[in-house]
């Protein structure tokens, strides 16, 4: 059994290694190459042409004139040490930019995904209990409508209505400009105020899908003999609803939850652009526009690693929450 955990953990590192390699390769395939922009910029700044390569090597831990394998080894070595080089467009170490951006993105994604599941599971189980009722039918229709509206449409509309028309909520940023960046009540309140719209628009559309999934699972569980036997045994309705129906209906959604956490990190590229919310996705897009390769590579890497870790946690913990699955063998989520 422990053998499985060791193997599974080693595979995480193997996957991350592969992703880093792929990122390195893909970016080198992009038109213009990684250092054209930087070289042009340095030249514009008046750095003598003879020194440019040395400066690049200094900034990016890579010697642009070295053979590809040398560049690759340098890059991988630096990444392993947490050194992603310096951002070309922002002139700051990439690691610092990422460290500042990640908490905002994680906050928005985590809260909105949890909300999405909580509300979806709650509404879905109500639908299942009242299967065929007017509420069930109306909400099923609404769920499908919600699913078909992309979150960025919700984002743009809510930004327009709540921020620009009614002026209730801020239009951009993670905290107010006048608020000190320290752990204080005004800071937290301002952060909350700025995150309401991104979280709202990132949650709303997802609720429908989770509600429909939960509805289907619950109806299936409700039809099981063990629920009927539990009723005959005189168990309280609340215990049947939680310990019997909810527990067994939520189980299949657990893996989906962890995977979605990872996937939704990458969705923030659009979301944070709309709200000028300076998180991971915001910087990724900025880096893309500015041909800022070091920053681009780092954001790619962080998002992929988040997904890998999500799957990893799902694999390791699934056997803990579902006794029928034993860790190991072919029971992995992916």
């Amino acid at each position, binding site marked *: 059994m422990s053998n499985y955990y060791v193997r599974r953990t080693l595979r995480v590192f193997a996957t991350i290694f592969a992703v880093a390699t792929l990122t390195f390769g893909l970016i080198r395939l992009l038109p213009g190459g990684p250092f054209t922009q930087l070289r042009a910029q340095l030249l514009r700044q008046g750095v003598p042409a003879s020194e440019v390569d040395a400066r690049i090597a200094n900034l990016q831990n890579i010697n642009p004139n070295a053979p590809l394998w040398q560049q690759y080894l340098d890059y991988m070595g630096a990444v392993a040490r947490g050194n992603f080089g310096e951002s070309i467009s922002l002139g700051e170490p990439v690691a610092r930019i990422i460290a500042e951006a990640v908490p905002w993105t994680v906050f928005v994604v985590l809260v909105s995904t949890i909300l999405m599941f909580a509300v979806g599971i709650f509404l879905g189980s109500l639908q299942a209990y009242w299967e065929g009722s007017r509420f069930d039918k109306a909400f099923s229709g609404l769920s499908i409508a919600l699913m078909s509206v992309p979150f960025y449409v919700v984002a743009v509309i809510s930004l327009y209505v709540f921020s620009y028309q009614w002026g209730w909520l801020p239009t951009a940023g993670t905290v107010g400009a006048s608020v000190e960046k320290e752990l204080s009540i005004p800071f937290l309140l301002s952060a909350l105020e700025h995150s309401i719209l991104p979280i709202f628009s990132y949650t709303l559309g997802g609720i429908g899908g989770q509600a429909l999934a939960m509805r289907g699972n619950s109806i299936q569980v409700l039809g099981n003999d063990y629920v009927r036997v539990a009723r*005959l*045994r005189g168990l309280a309705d609340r215990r049947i609803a939680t310990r019997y129906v909810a527990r067994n209906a939520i189980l299949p959604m657990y893996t989906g939850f962890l995977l979605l956490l990872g996937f939704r990190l990458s969705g923030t590229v659009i979301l944070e652009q709309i709200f000028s919310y300076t998180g991971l996705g915001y910087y990724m897009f900025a880096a893309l526009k500015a041909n800022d390769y070091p920053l681009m590579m780092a954001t790619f890497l962080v998002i992929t690693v988040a997904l890998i870790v999500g799957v990893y946690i799902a694999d390791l913990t699934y056997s803990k929450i579902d006794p029928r699955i034993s860790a190991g063998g072919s029971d992995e989520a992916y």
Partner: protein
Amino acid sequence: MTAKQHGTADTTTSMTTDDPIIEITNAAVTYDGGETYVLDHVSTSIERGEILGIVGESGSGKSMFADSMLDAIPDPGRLSGEILYHRDDGTTVDVLELSDDELREFRWEEVAMVFQGAMSSFNPTMKIGGHFKETLKAHDADVTSGMEFARELLSDLYLDPERVLDSYPHELSGGMQQRALIALSLILEPEVLVMDEPTAALDLLMQRSILTLLEDLQDKYDLTMVFITHDLPLVAELADRMAVMYAFQLIEVGNREQLIGNSGHPYTRALLNATPDIEAPLEDMRPIEGQSPAPINVPQGCSFAPRCPLATEECRVEDPAFTQLDSGHAVACHHPEDARDEIALHFERSEESAPVSGGDDS
């Protein structure tokens, strides 16, 4: 109310018993507001301490009959009639008149039930022991002594109590789950145990051993058992009295010997002749031609008439009421004497090879 007449008002059976624990009068289940019945005004009574075997083919209303004793018809079915339960202390309740809370107490404390699918009767994410504990708690019973009793029950059923209580359902075999489910049904010491095809999913060896265990349990805990099955030979070994269901009604009730050896209903006799028996010559095996009716086209008159070789005009018009053949043996047929004369039970000819091996203690 509807075009279809269910000739049922007069089916007050003559199957009274001396000390009934459950008396069912005109129990009927409908899923469409009375258009059709999946339990068609059945009346019978169950003697305290007996094992009553109910036999019928698939879709004859056996499960509805079982469910009705606990007022546990699956939604949206409607159960009407009267189901009287006589307690030990002489008081009587009508199960259908109980409030929700009273019903919750009644079930499992007075009448418990074992379903056919033991494999799906346990919550897959909860240990077996948890099922026992929550049942005790739900009925405000003392958990410590209750769990002692659970261990005793499991030992009675030849299970290792500690291992089973600490297992998840999927960690037990089908036979173990079935026995654990029987133990769970007895945890509150009910008077009556209703078993709806408890052995259907088990192999033959396990069926035999469960049967033996049930007999032991009945002796030890003074249970009244209602054993519902389509397996006639199986229940014939166990039951004191037997009843045959056909097309949502009871058609014959009697002691085991009366019903097996001297049945008066053509269907019962045909059923006995259709029972596979390894010792009987193949040419003696007689399948019953035709199919049993669906609830929407139960024939007028006797529901077996279309398949019955002895059916007369009277059978097709008038639904036969129960008539007493011998003491405690009643049959719903217009021509029971003809049936006995015309339909020979094939095991009567080959004397020693009775289709049921239950004649050991007549």
